[in-house]
């Protein structure tokens, strides 16, 4: 189908963008960035925003850069920007692995990192990655800037703590130590489909045992989140099958999986177990 009518705004600055969003938010005004989720939703007439504020022409939002100990990802940075590592070290390499699981190549040319997080589809790879890394979401409105820890950001399926008049301006990923190991594994039935479940993990190995373990599960529940029980099963243990299996079992036990016509909760729980183990094994390689 064809999208319904809307008024189009193309601001050139962030100030203009948030002013327009503030003005039109009551009339379901929304931000248009990559459009790879919003436009199909509009084509189905599931969304009929009265106004779209297109931020593609806003200067500076396409920057991805290291500032201090954070990787700053602007609102218009496309998925494709991560095809090559955006910084030296394990984080840049990790992001370049994860990006290959996002939809398809032409979609990755338009869709954005921040848009994916703002959309908060539980099956979004970047939602799992931001949850795993304890990212900070930077929201901006005419009322000012607000920093939101990712654990408080995702509130359910396609639901976040972003207010209607707030622009998700950037995401800050803490850059971990250079010896941090990463793993990512997802399952779907065909390349490019929405993931049925995924696991994103990281840990360091010091004196032969794992430290600072992070385990996040996406796609299985209504939001991506870190799984404390799985992390506890890794901390202080040597990396290997015993600890990985214990963490995988803990993750499977901790999740409350969604069900749909094709996927039972039991099946998703089994996937969480397998994907967590595989992601941990990948990180050990």
């Amino acid at each position: 189908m064809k999208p319904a009518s809307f008024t189009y705004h193309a601001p050139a600055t962030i100030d203009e963008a948030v002013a327009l969003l503030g003005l039109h938010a009551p009339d379901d005004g929304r931000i248009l960035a990559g459009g790879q989720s919003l436009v199909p939703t509009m084509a189905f007439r599931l969304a009929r925003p009265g106004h779209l504020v297109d931020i593609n022409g806003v200067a500076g939002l396409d920057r991805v850069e290291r500032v201090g100990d954070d990787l700053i990802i602007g609102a218009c940075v496309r998925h494709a920007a991560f095809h090559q590592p955006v910084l030296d070290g394990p984080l840049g390499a990790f992001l370049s692995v994860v990006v290959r699981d996002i939809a398809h190549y032409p979609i990755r040319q338009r869709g954005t990192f921040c848009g994916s997080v703002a959309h908060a589809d539980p099956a979004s790879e970047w939602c799992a990655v931001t949850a795993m890394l304890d990212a900070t979401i930077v929201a901006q409105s005419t009322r000012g800037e607000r920093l939101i820890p990712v654990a408080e950001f995702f509130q359910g399926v396609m639901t976040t703590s972003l207010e209607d008049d707030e622009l998700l301006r950037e995401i800050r990923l803490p850059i971990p130590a250079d010896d941090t190991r990463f793993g990512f594994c997802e399952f779907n039935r065909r390349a490019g489909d929405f993931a049925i479940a995924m696991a994103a993990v990281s840990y360091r190995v010091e004196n032969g045992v794992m430290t600072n373990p992070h385990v996040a599960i996406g796609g299985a529940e209504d939001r991506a989140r870190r799984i404390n029980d799985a992390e506890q099963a890794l901390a202080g243990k040597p990396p290997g099958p015993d600890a990985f299996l214990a963490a995988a079992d803990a993750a499977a036990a901790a999740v409350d999986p969604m069900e749909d016509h094709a996927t039972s909760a039991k099946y998703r729980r089994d996937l969480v177990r397998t994907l967590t183990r595989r992601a941990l094994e990948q990180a050990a390689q």
Partner: protein
Amino acid sequence: MTDQNKKDITLTINGRDYDLTVDPRWTLADVIREHCHLTGTHIGCEHGVCGACTVLLDGEPIRSCLMFGVQADGKQIRTVEGLAKDGKFHPLQEAFMETHALQCGFCTPGFLMLATGILEKQPDISDAELEELLSSNLCRCTGYINIVKAVQTVRDKIGRDQMRTA
């Protein structure tokens, strides 16, 4: 919505400028077909799944049903009509015919533009990577094998510079 909602834009398609007055809700695919009268770009699913509407936007393959025409103001667009030159088919078009990479032909313009975008950027792409990227688009006739073969044929025969000037 009234006409005052419309925007004046210029699209450059296959090197030619089109001055247009567009309703913001028109997708780029519709603008190309209905208002530039270039109907080689096909519309299949109209929600970004099938890839039949793939065009090159500043050299990169994108789904033209997933952006609005107004957003392409000032951009360089290439469609299937721009592939043949001086009455001679593009090597990819020749290869699609030779390897029977199309049957009904509906998906073909999208696959041709996807393959053009891929080979111009990655002329040495591996077989595995090529299969992965070609999985972006849907074909209901061929079973994909012959499409992969056609693109491999062109990759193996000619280099990057020739792709650009072809």
